[in-house]
């Protein structure tokens, strides 16, 4: 086992453990903080894949904005941070079944995939992944359409939020 694999396994265990804590802890703010550590684990996984841009954006967007928003929402809407009542709803077995089926399906699909057993080619020295990403996002041959559609969607959400919050005099 190489050092990278050991680090990956540790990070994956950390991420999964935090994920389990998110859904099992009864304190809602603690759940939000465990969510932060889960998202951080995902960021580390991106960093291990040499996707530094995605890793940093993961921290900026998910920890810096979304997790903070969660914490705010929980703090401002709940008087009691402890969640009472059962943690499972009656349909838990259906959810578990679907999860197991999806996992099994992915497992069988990926077993036949040749990409799983080949090692990735090393990134050439001096390769600027971030400008390649930037060019792909605005190049008509690559992802300009999804990128623009997502932008329009976000602008629509922004306009909607301003419209809802706007105080007519």
């Amino acid at each position, binding site marked *: 086992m190489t*050092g990278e694999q050991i680090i990956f396994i540790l990070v994956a265990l950390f991420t999964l453990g935090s994920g389990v804590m998110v859904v099992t802890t009864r304190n809602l703010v603690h759940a939000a903080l465990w969510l932060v550590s889960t998202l951080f684990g995902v960021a580390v996984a991106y960093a291990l894949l040499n996707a530094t841009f995605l890793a940093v954006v993961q921290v900026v967007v998910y920890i810096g904005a979304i997790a903070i928003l969660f914490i705010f929402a929980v703090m401002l809407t709940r008087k009691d941070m402890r969640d009472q009542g059962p943690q499972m709803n009656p349909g838990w077995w259906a959810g578990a079944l679907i999860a197991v089926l999806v996992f099994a399906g992915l497992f069988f699909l990926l077993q036949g995939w040749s990409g799983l057993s080949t090692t990735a080619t090393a990134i050439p020295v001096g390769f*600027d992944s971030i400008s390649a990403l930037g060019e792909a996002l605005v190049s008509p041959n690559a992802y300009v359409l999804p990128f623009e559609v997502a932008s329009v969607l976000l602008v629509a959400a922004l306009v909607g939020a301003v419209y809802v919050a706007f105080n007519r005099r």
Partner: protein
Amino acid sequence: MSFWNDPLKVAADWLLGIFNGWGMNDLVAQILIGFLGIFILVALLMVLDIFLVWVERKVVARFQDRLGPNRLGPFGLIQPFADIIKLLIKEDITPGGADKVVYNLAPMLSMMSVLILWAVVPLAPRMIGVDLNIGALYIIAAGAIGTLSIIMAGWSSNNKFALIGAFRQVAVMVAFEIPMLATLLIPTILAGSMGFNAITEAQDIWFFWIVPLAAVIFMIAAIAELGRSPFDMSEGESELVAGFNTEYSGMKFGMFYAGELLHAFTFGSFWAILFFGGYRFLGLEKVSAFLAIAVIVFKSFIGYWVIMWVKYTLMRIRIDHMLGFNWKFLTPLAFVLLMVVALLNALLAGTPQWIYVPVMFLANVILGLGALEIARAYSRRERAKVEGVVTT
């Protein structure tokens, strides 16, 4: 001579030789040397932090026309050590009903969010922790962790003043991140890279002379991000006791305080790197790496001094004014500036420097003055409205 040019590599090779001599594996030795490097950098920063306490107190004394610490040692230089001993022997209080783990984690995260910033600071041409190709975004990501530490501190203290302080501070930090991000993109456009080393190398002419308005906006956003006066609503001692760190005592408070000082110095250094050429000064950086470090420390202190100058000159702004100023003035201005710079940079590509620099500079000045004029006209209208109500 190579030691004076690239001391880190020489030292690392020397250590590697010693470790290999002990029969250590190459990989283990590399990891050990990496950790040693981090340890030395952090230790130096913490020592600098002690010194910064003294600098801050002396400078504020100067601004307020008093002497500052002057009893212990020459110029009161031993005062910060006395302060540290005092903080260490203070009773460590955990408030009743506090969330212990989160409460103790918050000061550590606060300090960490500052220290990790130094991973991307280029101290000399080849002395940089990691030359990340997304250095500019990395600052924002570290700031996100700082925001998190403040909300953790405010919430876990089980104190309403701490929580209100944390809410205010987080509202300010989340808001001022946006103009900061927009101004960080401007040196990125000019240098063609987000890495700090590349940005420094691109500054044959300081970016301050090309985009002065961006430097000013970055400084304002940085001061807000630091939570220093005039943006220190989070501490607002006249109404909130001490804001988010009300319940912290002893060295835990010391961590927040030291973190804030080092954060201010760090942003002084980012200001220097982004707009004032970083470690470059008249070719001194080519002579020796140590001179380059001296240059960047000196420039960082100037940035730090500007932050202190603003802090001890201006009064605190009300929270709604502060956020209004950000969302209605600074953010639109930063985005307009970003578009203008991007457009002009593309239009003027290939023109000689004596055209490029003055045109960029003038565009910035005109944009800044125009924005101020719009703001002034608006405030005049508002004032007329209020005064009209008062007189009738």
